[in-house]
Structure formats: structure tokens, C-alpha cells
């Protein structure tokens, strides 16, 4: 894992510096910023040094746990991340839970009753969810569920004015996260539902099911013990990948719902060339992705005994 991360850090750093502009090119307000200030800051931040020196500086700091300072927010990157990570994690976990519950419910129903009206309705709904890009879905759901129906708040992670730790505070947080979590998970819900449905249908045609039926096993037992268990296998591995992408996957959702999290921070750091933040988040996301891979492999082994034996 480490060698890949190291190599990745070199490449990403090079890429980041290769992007046109730097953290100061955004300062184009002539009434407030003086070119002299820009030149001074560039020197101070070391942007004029050769790239490999800048990289080594970053690397030595990073290894020791010093992620550097954000130029935009003028605070240590680690503090900045600490502020935002709980939001993204909360959103990601809620979204995962909702996605899997819904995907299972709809997928199993569809798989059991293929080609019925219910199945077709679910399929249509899913294909629309797949086709509509997430930002359109987000805006549509805000205007419908939030403005028109008033069921959910449209922005933020929590109501302001509530004290941290109280029950009201947690209820508010949960309330705020629901709509973004639903929208975030919509795409995955749709694909997993269809996937599960197809898998269930495939498995129900397999020979061992015919055997079980011939033996006289009840339909219920066939479904629960034979078909479902096999169909779940690939889905479970998706779980690994989903965990891996928890941090970086919500960029668009966070932006539209003004839900301050890592995704939004990442996008901003990219647009404003806030290198320290960008590198720190990229490394974190890559680490999580690798971790997710590992989890997926492990889970695969847990769920499919054939793999375990190897």
C-alpha cells in the first residue's frame, strides 16, 4: 500500500503544480490586492522554488503529521479537515444505509416478481435515476420536497442556534442529512437494485435451484437460503468500494445542499489552487480507496467460501 501511495503523491503533486495558476492567481481584486503583496506571498510560500524542493518540503511535513496550512482559510489543514470530516462521514454513512436498504427491498421484490407492473415501475424509476445527473436530481428534489412540500430543509447540516449535543441538535442534523443522503445514494440505489434483480433472476434459473425444488424445499427456503445468499455476494463487494469512496463521492451533493464537507472542500481547493488542502484530501481519499479495495477483497472471502480456500 505504501509504495503506491508514495508514487501517487509524487504524481499528484506534479499534476497540481502543473495546473495553470496558483493560490494567488485568484486574487484579482485590484482595489484590495497589491501586486507587491502577491509577489511577496509567492516567495514566502515557496512557490518560486524548484518543484522537487517544494515536494520534499511537503513530504517531510506530511510524514510527520503536519499537513501544512491552507492558504485560503489561513488555518492548519488538519483543523480544517477535522471540522468538515464528521459532516461527510455522517452523510456518507446515512447514504450507504439508505441505499442498501432501499436497493435490497426493491431488488428483492423485482427479482421475485419479474416482468410485473411493479417490476417495470421500479425499473423505469431506476433508469430515470440513472440518467438524470445528480445536480439536476438535487435541485429538483429541493424544489419539490423542500420548497413545495416543506418536508426537509434545503441547505446546511444543522439548524443554527441549536446547542451541540442536545437531542434537538441531533434531530436537526439527521433531518438535514436525509435529503442529501437520498439524492447522493439515488444513482447507486438504482444500479444496485437492477443488479440484484438480475442476479436473483439468474440464480433462480440455476440448476441447484431446480434440484432444491425437485427435492421439495419450500419456496421461501429456496429464496432465503439459496438464491438470496448467492445474489448478495457481489453486492457485498460493492460495499467495500462504497466505503472507499465515502470521502470523495459527495462533491456535487455537498455543493448544492451547501453541506460543508470534504467533497466541497476538495473542489474548492482545486479551483483555488490551495495546494496543501488539495494534497491532504487527495491522499486521504486515495488511502480510503485502497482501504475500500482491501475490505472488498476481505468481504468477498467472507461471503464466498470458495475464495477463502485459495
Amino acid at each position, binding site marked *: 500500500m505504501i509504495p*503506491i501511495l508514495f*508514487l*501517487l503523491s509524487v*504524481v*499528484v503533486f506534479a*499534476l*497540481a503544480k*502543473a*495546473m*495553470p495558476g496558483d493560490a494567488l492567481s485568484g486574487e484579482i481584486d485590484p482595489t484590495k490586492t497589491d501586486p507587491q503583496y502577491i509577489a511577496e506571498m509567492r516567495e514566502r510560500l515557496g512557490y518560486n522554488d524548484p518543484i522537487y524542493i517544494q515536494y520534499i518540503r511537503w513530504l517531510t511535513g506530511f510524514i510527520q503529521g503536519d499537513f501544512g496550512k491552507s492558504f485560503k482559510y489561513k488555518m492548519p489543514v488538519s483543523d480544517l479537515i477535522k471540522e468538515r470530516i464528521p459532516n461527510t462521514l455522517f452523510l456518507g454513512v446515512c447514504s450507504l444505509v439508505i441505499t442498501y436498504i432501499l436497493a435490497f427491498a426493491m431488488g428483492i421484490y423485482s427479482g421475485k416478481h419479474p416482468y410485473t407492473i411493479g417490476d417495470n415501475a421500479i425499473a423505469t424509476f431506476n*433508469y*430515470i435515476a*440513472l*440518467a*438524470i*445527473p*445528480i*445536480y*439536476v436530481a438535487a*435541485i*429538483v428534489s429541493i*424544489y419539490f420536497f423542500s420548497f413545495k412540500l416543506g418536508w426537509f430543509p434545503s441547505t446546511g447540516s444543522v439548524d443554527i442556534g441549536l446547542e451541540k449535543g442536545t437531542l434537538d441538535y441531533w434531530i436537526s442534523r439527521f433531518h438535514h442529512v436525509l435529503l442529501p443522503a437520498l439524492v447522493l445514494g439515488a444513482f447507486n440505489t438504482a444500479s444496485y437494485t*437492477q443488479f440484484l434483480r*438480475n442476479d436473483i433472476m439468474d440464480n433462480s*434459473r*440455476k440448476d441447484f435451484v431446480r434440484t432444491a425444488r425437485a427435492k421439495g424445499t419450500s419456496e421461501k427456503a429456496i429464496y432465503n437460503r439459496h438464491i438470496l445468499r448467492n445474489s448478495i455476494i457481489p453486492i457485498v463487494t460493492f460495499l467495500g468500494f462504497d466505503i472507499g469512496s465515502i470521502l470523495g463521492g459527495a*462533491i*456535487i451533493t455537498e455543493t448544492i445542499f451547501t453541506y460543508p464537507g470534504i467533497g466541497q472542500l476538495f*473542489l474548492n481547493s*482545486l479551483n483555488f489552487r490551495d495546494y496543501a488542502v*488539495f494534497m491532504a484530501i*487527495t491522499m486521504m*481519499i*486515495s488511502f480510503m*480507496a*485502497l482501504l475500500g*479495495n482491501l475490505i472488498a477483497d476481505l468481504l468477498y472471502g467472507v461471503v464466498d467460501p470458495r475464495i477463502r480456500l485459495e
Partner: protein
Amino acid sequence: MSTATETTRSLAARQKSPSTWAIAARKFRKNRLAMAGLSFILLIVILSFLAPVIATQDITRVHFDQVEKKPSVEHWLGTDNNGRDVLTRLIHGGRISLTIGFSCVALVILIGTLIGAVSGYYGGKIDGLLMRFTDFVLLFPFLPFIIVINAIFIGKISGVWSLIIVISLLGWPGTARLVRGKVLAEKENEYILAAVSIGTKPYKIILKHLLPNVLSVVIVQASLLLAAFIVAETALTFLGFGVPQNIPSWGNMLSEARNSNVLRNKPWMWVPPATVITLTLLSINFMGEGLKDAFNPKSSR
């Protein structure tokens, strides 16, 4: 008596046993949904390529006096915020979106299959190295890469090709893994061992024996990828890294919906691309399903 044996023998001679492809094709043709999907895709592709001929209204010229008009006889789907005909842009946009989709799929399948096959067949160190490389590419950050590629190629190649290059360079690991898995499994079969034992060169084994058997999986994967890439284009447009705005594409037409006024009051600007994308995805999926069923010897619907 001789005529009877003649007839049976000639009958037997004429009736060759059908190949896998023929069986698959026949099954596919019988699958109504899959055929519907295929027809829709063909229709869209043909329309898109005929775009310059059939959709002749100007897609670049801005018409101040015809901005945001509702659908009418002159403009079947109305006009957008620059006074351009929506239907024309939709058809031209299909060209771009489909070009991106098909090109990326072709490139990804090519790279992925090659790497996956080589990796799976040779195993050992080569496999290890290639898989490491695959993991690395999986982790590669997409956004900064596309910014840099755009910056490097600015003015030299069109933004559409930048996008295709980046998606293809970063999108093949999934396919590689898939192909590798399949090759690993197929490799153990006796006919492969037989070919090796008579001294067939590796590239011939890969090309003539392994790949055709792996192809069915690859084809299904290709259809999934096509859907995924068309969707990816729409998502990227939001972040500003999609097709540059002066070239119409379904993605950037749909991104107009970001403006709440367009979303709520001017549906003709964004619902057409949304509908077309949905139908395209549905068609691709039905086709993919159909293909999967067609190649599966056990399915018989």
C-alpha cells in the same frame, strides 16, 4: 432406396450445426426488448450522423430576438437562452455525446482487454506488475488530470478529445480486472493446455482461443460502459470539465437545469436531453441484457 439415403445424407450435409454466434444472434433477435433497444440506438446514431443534413438550423449564431421561446411550428422544441433551436442542438448534441461514449468504450475495451488478457495469461511477475499498475490508475485523481490535459492541449485539440483521452486513460482498470478474472478461469481449460502443448505461440493462444471465449463478457461490459460514460459526461459538465459550451452536447444542454428559472419555467430546454438520455440508457441496458441472455446457453425465454 438410394434416393432415400441420398436425401438423408444431403440433408445432414446441408444442416451444419450452428455456431455460438449464430445461436446468440437468433436468441437476441427473439428478445423484443433488446431489439427495441437496438433499434433506438441505431436510430439515434443515424440521426446524429445525419445531423448536418437534417438539422440545419444554425447552432452557433446567436439570435437576440428569439431567446427562450416556447415550442412552436418553427422551433419544434423551442429555443434556448441564446436563441438557438433546441431540436437542432439536441441532434448535434447526440453526435457529440455518442461520439464520446463510443470512442471511450472502444479505447477502454481495447486497453483493458489487452492488459487483462496478458496479465491473466502470463501470470506471475507480469501479472503482479500489471495489477499494481492497474491499482495505481484506479487511484489516480480524475479532476486535476483533466485540468492539466486541458491546459496543455488548449487550442491545439478540441475539448471533446481532451475529455475522451482522459476518460479512456483512467477508465480501463475495471475492464482489465474483469478480463483478467475470466482469462484466469479459462486458462485452466484443457483446450488451452492442448494448444500450449503443441507449441502454439502465446499471442495466438490469446487471440484465437482465449479472447473469443472472453468476448461475451467483454461485450456486456462494453454496453455498461457506454451507459456509464454518457452519464459521466453530464456529471462532468456541472463541475465545469465537460464538453466546452460552444459545442452542444446532451450534458451541457441538461446543465441548463442548474438555473432554477429554467428548471421550473422553461422545461423545453432541459427535458428533451433528459428524456433522450434516459431512453438511450434504457436501450443500452436492454441490449446488454439481451446480449447476456443470448450468450448464456441456459437461458431460454
